[in-house]
């Protein structure tokens, strides 16, 4: 327990906090704007990492994988928000997608007992199309109850998507533990005052700081940012003064997914990418959001730093209760100030 121990642990904690900031800030903004507890946020992180792996596999460029993976996942988040969480105007597309999805499962399960269906594309498509049309007719006859006003149903819907994403990732990329290899420049170490600092962790911190500054500028200086802040404070009032809150939620959901996926690419280099990572990151992201306060960027930064440091020092100093030391403060904060330390009332 000398100075070096404290320096190294603090550095590791801060760099882990930098990663958590990427995941947590998006979750926090989504909660602030839409009051949605998004349990598929961990899946965005995982998919970001996996898509980056594919991009690296096909192009060989790690630099290219960062924006591509993040944009792809942002698109997924956008579709999820627009088609399922808030589907006015797109009910037909949503019903059609769900009908198609179930129809594929139906033909797959029929195929288990009558293998000729999965033997060729012809019969498979025919059975699927038939089932899809039947299901679509059924689904569009069911009168729907909007889910906007019910946090529990929104949460469970995002859980359902988390499971779908999990299985999808398993089917596409397999169940092996994979690593993202960043360029050689970033994998070296620097020696400062006799202590080794991995360059990659410095890069993580720099990246988080840069993104934090950009986010802050967007939120404080642009019209869209002002609209977002207004929606966080009072969505009804914001609608009243003519802010298109639907556009704001779409923007924020896509942004949140973008940031989580970016975290997945960056974090994948030292955490690895493996099935189950999504549900490992999710509670940590929630800790960030709750400690920092929902819907506040500065709060997310402080929360991420706190969780990163608490996680590292907890594991090093009291390994047996390390997660407890992480979540217990979270409970206390929630009990005393439900909106988090820096949340807006």
């Amino acid at each position, binding site marked *: 327990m000398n100075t070096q121990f404290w320096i190294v642990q603090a550095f590791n904690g801060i760099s882990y906090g930098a990663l958590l900031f990427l995941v947590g800030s998006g979750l926090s903004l989504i909660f602030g704007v839409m*009051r949605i*507890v998004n*349990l598929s946020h961990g899946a965005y992180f995982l998919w970001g990492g996996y898509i980056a792996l594919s991009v690296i596999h096909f192009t060989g460029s790690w630099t290219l994988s960062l924006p591509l993976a993040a944009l792809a996942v942002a698109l997924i988040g956008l579709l999820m928000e627009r088609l*399922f969480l808030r589907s006015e105007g797109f009910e037909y597309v*949503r019903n059609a997608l*769900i009908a198609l*999805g*179930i129809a594929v*499962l139906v033909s*797959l*399960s029929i195929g*288990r007992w009558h293998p000729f269906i999965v033997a060729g594309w012809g019969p498979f498509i025919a059975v699927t199309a038939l089932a899809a049309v039947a299901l679509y007719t059924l*689904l569009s006859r*069911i*009168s*729907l*109850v*909007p*889910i906007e*006003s*019910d*946090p*529990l*149903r929104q*949460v*469970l*819907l995002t*859980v*359902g*998507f*988390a*499971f*779908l994403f*999990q*299985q999808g990732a*398993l*089917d596409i990329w397999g169940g092996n533990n994979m690593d993202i290899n960043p360029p050689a420049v970033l994998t070296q170490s620097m020696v400062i005052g006799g202590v080794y600092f991995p360059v990659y962790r410095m890069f993580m911190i720099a990246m988080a700081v840069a993104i934090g500054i950009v986010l802050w500028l967007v939120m404080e200086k642009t019209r869209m940012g002002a609209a977002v802040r207004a929606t966080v404070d009072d969505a009804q009032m914001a609608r009243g003064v003519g802010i298109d809150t639907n556009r704001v939620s779409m923007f924020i959901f896509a942004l949140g997914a973008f940031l989580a996926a970016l975290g997945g690419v960056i974090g994948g280099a030292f955490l690895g990418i493996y099935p189950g990572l999504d*549900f490992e990151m*999710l*509670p940590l992201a*929630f*800790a960030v959001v*709750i400690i920092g306060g929902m819907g506040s960027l500065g709060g997310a930064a402080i929360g991420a730093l706190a969780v990163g440091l608490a996680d590292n020092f907890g594991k090093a100093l009291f*390994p*047996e*209760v*390390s*997660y*407890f030391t*992480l*979540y*217990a403060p*979270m*409970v*206390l904060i*929630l*009990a005393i100030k*439900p*909106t988090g330390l820096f949340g807006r009332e």
Partner: protein
Amino acid sequence: MVSQRVKILIVFVVLAALAFIVPNSGSFVVLLATRAMAFAILAMSVDLLLGYTGMSSMGQAAYFGVGAYLTAVMVTKFHIGMGWDFWLVVVLGILIGCALAALFGLFAIRAGGVYFLMITLALGQCVWGLAYRWNSLTGGDNGINMTGRPQFGLDLSNEVTFFYLVFAFFAVSMLLLYVLVRSPFGRSLAGIRERELRMQILGYNTWLHKYIAFIIAGGFGGLAGVLWAYTNGHVSPETVVLTTSVDALLMVVLGGAGTLVGAAIGAAIVFGLREFLSTLVPWWQYALGGVYVLTILYLPMGLMGIPARFRQRLTSQGNDQASKKLVSKPS
């Protein structure tokens, strides 16, 4: 409307049929039904909170996990719970569930709506963190293995005997919860669910009502955990993980919140998907995710709500009020 008596009769007949059919099926079905029934007790405890009190707890796995870990620690460290003292472990499991809920309730009950969701999530994660990391007590990631089942006149290592025992616990739990929700106390819980402010104005101490309901639910969660530990013979952090809590919530919503029977049906379906479908096809998780999405979007009142929706459709064909009425459900 089918009268309440007929409904009770139907439940009774179905339970009797289950007790008769399951033991005569394969051993896999017996095991599956035993596990599903242990879990159904947890689902019904969630229903007491969600369906009857309007509190959506995302941390119910905590009580379940505490009950399960208590059993495993008692059996492996203190050699208690393999004979007549099985009943002692059951009582202790219920008590520890109640005690934990009494502690957690102090933090959680104050919060409402989505904040209640978050705080119960955090509380559940606290218990998970301890289970995962407290190696000397919980065995960490590996969990605790228990060998054998209790023997006290009854030989519980016989799967069918054990099924009957869990079945009895399940039926008694359902009966107790039914009596509870039909009691004046249960009625005032429903009042709190519908409009808490009005109950406060009428002079009810709504905090205390919710707190007591929370503790009772914790006790049933603990009981479910004890039975779960004996059923599986293995307890690991997987028992306390976030998805266990969420699964229990889905079971309630799928079956129909505020019906108790719905929670049991939901448990049977989700368990069937998780345990049975996963032995048949590799893509079972699509089906599970699909059930989540379909339930939430198309079955807001659950399976038990289907008759009501049909009736509503028949009485007010093409009337928009029909769908609006359905909105006034607990949130």
